[in-house]
């Protein structure tokens, strides 16, 4: 297992190299001059040129790539052109914000999705099944940003149940430690704040989690149905086991393998796809960070941001693979 993990990590190397090449090329294929944006509409030609010079933007690409990789290897993600801060020092809060949101979105998605899927499969063709699957279909068909806006309109504005934006109450900012606010609140033993943080998470988590929830529910259901037809389930029944044992002990674990793939995949998608939700709910996450950087042509931030998201995605896949082996003894390495 340990050796396998190490080997899997080694295998990431070519993928990572490919990713650096792609991010680097994307960034440099994007037209537009960061120097120009930094200086704004008021800048003179000389100013733009001088700035380009000082940012090293007129070196040949290959040299720039070399420098980029060299810095990366030293853990240096570069300096944001816009804020002039070290990216490695300013990026963590963004990542934490997105992680926290993704975590709760997936929690919501997995909890509801898996259970709805199980019940649907168990009571195949019942009204619950019908409604759950219709709901799931609608869920995957909805533009998330629209759902987010509608939620905001209904639950924040009209009903006022949940806050409409941000991670915390503006008037009472937290002294962040890990930048996972729920966790931080626990660390501070500030339980009202735990509630507040959770309340802020509700709407964006639902918005973000709806699509994965629907996908997971559908996947769980079909996977369960398939497993329920298998020979070994028949064996369990022949032993005289009741439905509960059959479903939750024998079927679920087998059905979970494809579901885990989906969960892993969706987690990755959420991490990068949260841009829209983050914008609408004013969530200072990595998606927005990168998106803003793209329009600002903040090359180092785009590069590092995309790379980090992709890297996390790859790591999640790794975790999924390792999870397989935990669930399935057949996968041995």
């Amino acid at each position, binding site marked *: 297992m340990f050796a396998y993990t190490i080997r899997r990590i080694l295998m990431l190397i*070519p*993928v990572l190299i*490919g*990713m650096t090449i*792609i991010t680097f090329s*994307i960034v440099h*294929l*994007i*037209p537009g001059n960061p120097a120009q944006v930094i200086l704004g509409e008021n800048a003179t030609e000389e100013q733009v040129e001088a700035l380009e010079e000082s940012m090293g933007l007129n070196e040949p690409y290959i040299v720039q790539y070399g420098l980029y990789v060299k810095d990366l290897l030293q853990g240096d993600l570069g300096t944001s052109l816009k804020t002039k801060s070290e990216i490695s020092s300013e990026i963590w809060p963004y990542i934490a914000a997105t992680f926290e949101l993704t975590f709760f979105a997936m929690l919501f998605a997995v909890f509801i999705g898996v259970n709805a899927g199980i019940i649907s499969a168990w009571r195949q063709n019942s009204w619950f099944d019908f409604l759950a699957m219709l709901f799931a*279909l*609608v869920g*995957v*068909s*909805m*533009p*998330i*940003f*629209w759902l987010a*806006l*509608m939620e*905001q*309109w209904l639950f924040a*504005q009209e009903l006022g149940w949940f806050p409409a934006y941000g991670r915390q109450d503006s008037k009472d900012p937290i002294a962040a430690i890990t930048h996972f606010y729920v966790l931080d609140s626990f660390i501070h033993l500030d339980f009202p704040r735990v509630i507040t943080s959770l309340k802020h998470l509700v709407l964006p988590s639902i918005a973000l989690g709806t699509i994965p929830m629907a996908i997971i529910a559908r996947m769980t259901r079909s996977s369960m149905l*398939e497993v329920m037809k298998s020979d070994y389930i028949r064996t369990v029944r022949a032993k005289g086991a009741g439905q509960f044992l059959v479903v939750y002990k024998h079927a679920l674990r087998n059905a979970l393998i494809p579901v885990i793939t989906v969960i892993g995949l969706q987690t*990755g*998608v959420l*991490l*990068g*796809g949260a*841009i*829209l939700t983050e914008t609408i709910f004013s969530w200072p996450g990595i*998606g927005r960070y*990168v*998106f803003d950087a*793209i*329009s600002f042509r903040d090359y180092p931030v*785009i590069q590092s941001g*995309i790379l980090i*998201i*992709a890297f996390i*995605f*790859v790591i999640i*896949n790794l975790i999924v693979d390792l999870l397989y082996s935990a669930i399935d003894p057949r996968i041995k390495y």
Partner: protein
Amino acid sequence: MNVENKKQFSNKKLTNPSPNSPKPNSEEVKAISPWRDAMRQLRKNHFALAGFVIIVFFILLGLVAPLLTPFAFDEQDIINRLQPPSAEHWLGTDHLGRDIFTRIAYGARISLQVGFFAVTGALVVGSILGIVAGYFGRWIDMLISRIFDILLAFPSILLAIAVVAILGASLENALIAIAIINIPIFGRLVRSKVISLREEEYIMAAKAQGMKNGRIILHHILPNSTAPIIVQATLGFGTAILEAAALGFLGLGAQPPDPEWGKMLADARDFIQLAPWTLIVPGVAIMLVVLGFNLIGDGLRDALDPKMKN
């Protein structure tokens, strides 16, 4: 008695045993192709039927749009901006006083076209790459698969945004971006299908007949990979429309005055309190069309997947 009889009929016909006695079989001479069978299954699926109805509705809406409304989709009437639904403006007007119903109807054209072209593009390129990777294997497979891996490791919407950033914001470029991010999805699907088919005995049989690779791919592998590809394409239609809407929403897709639904949502965003219908209508339109494709896709999957039959 037995012995005698046995002798009798054991002599009878050994060289050319008739496989079927004509009676029970003569009725069903008609050839039922796997496709027709699937279509039959599909017709019985109410969900799929509903999806079909939705899509046909929007196609018709797009086609006959000019006949349905007296307005042009870009006809402004600033005095009458943000009107709620009324007899004149069935779904109200937007912030420039344009008729929302008209825009939704014309927008159907855009969305359906985006879905179609993006999926077709991704499908063609993805299939070619997938087939090449899957059938020839070795280093080509390694290379193509790694590229797919890498592309898939990037969150699709970010990748699309980056592509649009490179190409410039326009509907065509959004379409290209969506096609690009879908290529690895189709590519992988086709590749895995080809790899599993490659192991099928009938492919081995085709080889044993002395067929060339090209023919095996075209006549044996491709037709048998179509089922999952069609399903994926149908579902991809939906996602492509959603992605186009997301790009439109971010201002990276269709440009004014094109009534692209995601763009309409973006425009309406500031009026959520003043004129909620401007936001609700395009959202519902997107949802319905995507739902339609998903319903059909699901139905097709069930119909084409023999495992789902019962």
